[in-house]
């Protein structure tokens, strides 16, 4: 027995295109412990959503080609599972909360029936029993008047309510792992705070593992325990939230954190990272971040730095990490 809920080793995903291979994910290791909330942070195109779909084995192949050395959920190896077998895993053991609730829900089915489906698919129960559980699930995520809401269609609900319905669906069968792909990006600030509160509350109450995919560092700082920072398909830094926000080691993490405007700031110039994310077909040589990096040397231009591991569990892919303490260096 181990205490890892999800163990993923060396995930690679490529999309062949006419112009060449788009290497979306280039060898990612991911560990999520039981009851832990892990955030994967990165900008658009860095491969974070592809990673989340790969964990669910939801990538369409073709076009996507996926290879993974190990994909273990609890003690189950999912790597060689067939599509039929995966269907019984999805929803019951892993479930996903998508970004845009309006497109994730079926517009011509009442939300109640859509949640019912979760129970009916994975349990041998009557429709009546399923609806009873649906109402419980909706109440749990804070949908007021669940009974009448269940008979509403998605367009009759507000954005925050729709997102709650998705959360209810994800938690319906009490899965072991929940993937939340940008769960609050499409919402207003006040609603975003509500939804995050619900998500975090449910996760802690039922002790499930949560994998949070986001580009919003402020969400990460409020919800996650451990953070993986991704850049151009590779992990550049892994650290606990506290460590990452206090002493980011990778220049990219440092730049990202510094460039977020803060309420505590006084008026001044924004700290900026020059240039933008490289095109997936035109990735630079050596370290992918070197054209944007202030500390880049000749070595960075030639070789991709390895993901170095420190004793305290942090990992950094950089030849010249910042703010490294002496104790970390000795390891």
């Amino acid at each position, binding site marked *: 027995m181990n205490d890892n809920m999800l163990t993923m080793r060396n995930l690679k995903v490529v999309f062949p295109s006419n112009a060449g291979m788009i290497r979306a994910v280039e060898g990612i290791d991911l560990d999520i412990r039981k009851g832990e909330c892990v955030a994967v942070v990165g900008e658009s195109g860095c491969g974070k959503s592809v990673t989340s779909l790969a964990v669910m084995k939801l990538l369409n192949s073709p076009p996507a080609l996926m290879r993974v050395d190990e994909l273990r959920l609890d003690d189950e190896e999912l790597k060689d599972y067939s599509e039929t077998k995966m269907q019984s895993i999805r929803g019951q053991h892993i479930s996903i909360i998508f970004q845009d609730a309006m497109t994730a829900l079926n517009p011509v089915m009442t939300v109640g029936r859509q949640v019912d489906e979760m129970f009916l698919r994975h349990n041998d129960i009557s429709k009546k029993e399923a609806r009873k559980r649906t109402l419980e699930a909706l109440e749990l995520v804070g949908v007021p008047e669940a009974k009448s809401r269940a008979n509403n269609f998605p367009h009759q609900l507000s954005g925050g309510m729709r997102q709650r319905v998705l959360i209810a669906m994800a938690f319906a069968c009490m899965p072991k792992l929940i993937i939340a792909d940008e769960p609050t990006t499409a919402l207003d600030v006040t609603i*975003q*705070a509500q939804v995050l509160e619900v998500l975090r509350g449910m996760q802690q109450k039922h002790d499930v593992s949560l994998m949070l995919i986001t580009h919003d560092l402020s969400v990460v700082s*409020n919800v996650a325990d451990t953070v993986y920072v991704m850049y151009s398909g590779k992990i550049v830094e892994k650290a606990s939230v506290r460590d990452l926000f206090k002493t980011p080691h990778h220049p990219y993490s440092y730049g990202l954190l510094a460039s977020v405007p*803060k309420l505590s700031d006084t008026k001044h110039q924004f700290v900026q*990272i020059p240039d933008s*994310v490289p095109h997936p077909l035109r990735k630079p040589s050596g370290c992918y971040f070197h054209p944007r990096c202030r500390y880049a040397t000749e070595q960075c231009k030639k070789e991709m730095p390895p993901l170095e591991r420190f004793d305290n569990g942090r990992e950094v892919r950089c030849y010249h990490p910042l703010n490294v303490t002496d104790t970390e260096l000795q390891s």
Partner: protein
Amino acid sequence: MSENENRDRPIIDMRNVSVDFPVKGPIPFMPKKKVRAVTDVSLTIDYGETFGIVGESGCGKSTLANAMIGMVKPTAGDVLFKDVDLFKLKRKEFKRIRRDMQMIFQDPYSSLNPRFNVYQLISEPMFIRGGVSDEDMKARVVELLELVGLSDDDLYRHPSDFSGGQRQRIGIARAISLNPDFLVCDEPVSALDVSVHAQILNLLVEIQSKLKLTYVFISHNLAVVKNVCDNMIVMYLGKVMESGSAESIFRNPKHPYTHALLSAVLDVDIENRKERVVLKGDIPSPIDPPKGCRFWKRCPFAMTGCKDKPAELLDIEPNHAVACHLVNDVFTDAEKDAGLNQPIEDHAEGLLGTHGKK
């Protein structure tokens, strides 16, 4: 640009502007309903300042900005741009004055025509105005490209060759190509990558100081507004809840809604995290906004009197006004005797949740 330019007068002066949109009912000939997008907003914007409009989606901030540049005709009230009433102008005059106001859009993926190259995109406003030779136009486009941080190699490339940040730069170059005085930035960075936000914001600030522009900055990101704006308004359901200098609003937020907005902002600062107050409930429909104070249904401090009496914007200190009965203490003694300043029973519970420390 125009002859009646007087930099001491405000560039925009809106007086009691309301915008309603009719909605079709389910049954024909039924009394038409109206979406009350903006209700009774008055504001002035001075030359060279950055004016922020903050609020949740559907609160009317984009409609208000559109009314400023004459894209939406207000159902009531006047909009004066450089002391000229935009909606009393003849079509031709309006077209001329519109050159002085431009807009930067939110989504650089849909605001640039994918079939145009960069040169065509940026020169289009000049082309429409006419009277510029091809060489001058090209020189001007190159100059603009350099100003926004692109190079003349990019001249004949198409939008699809550029990243989001670069596209937004093209959008900015296009907006300033006719030397406007007034620029509306409608969520200029919210569709962009996080690491590019700062670049575009810095560029906007730099261009403003170079060209002496006046900005209206629409955003839901309070941290950005705090760092960019001089004056601002906080809107809720089409009404101004709080207005004044950004500095005083952030230092001393008075309205319960401003408080809630500020407290909902997730800060990356994990060292000094404060207890957060989270508003429950959703923004009501603007078709049938609550009577009285627009915010009372979600306000944790709502009093009996808030249900019926609309809150008016009153000054609490120089350049800082709040529309709240509680803050302004507006009830007369007679009304107080009638119990109008008593909290509504069984109202506050269920409205607030605290999002505590981790």
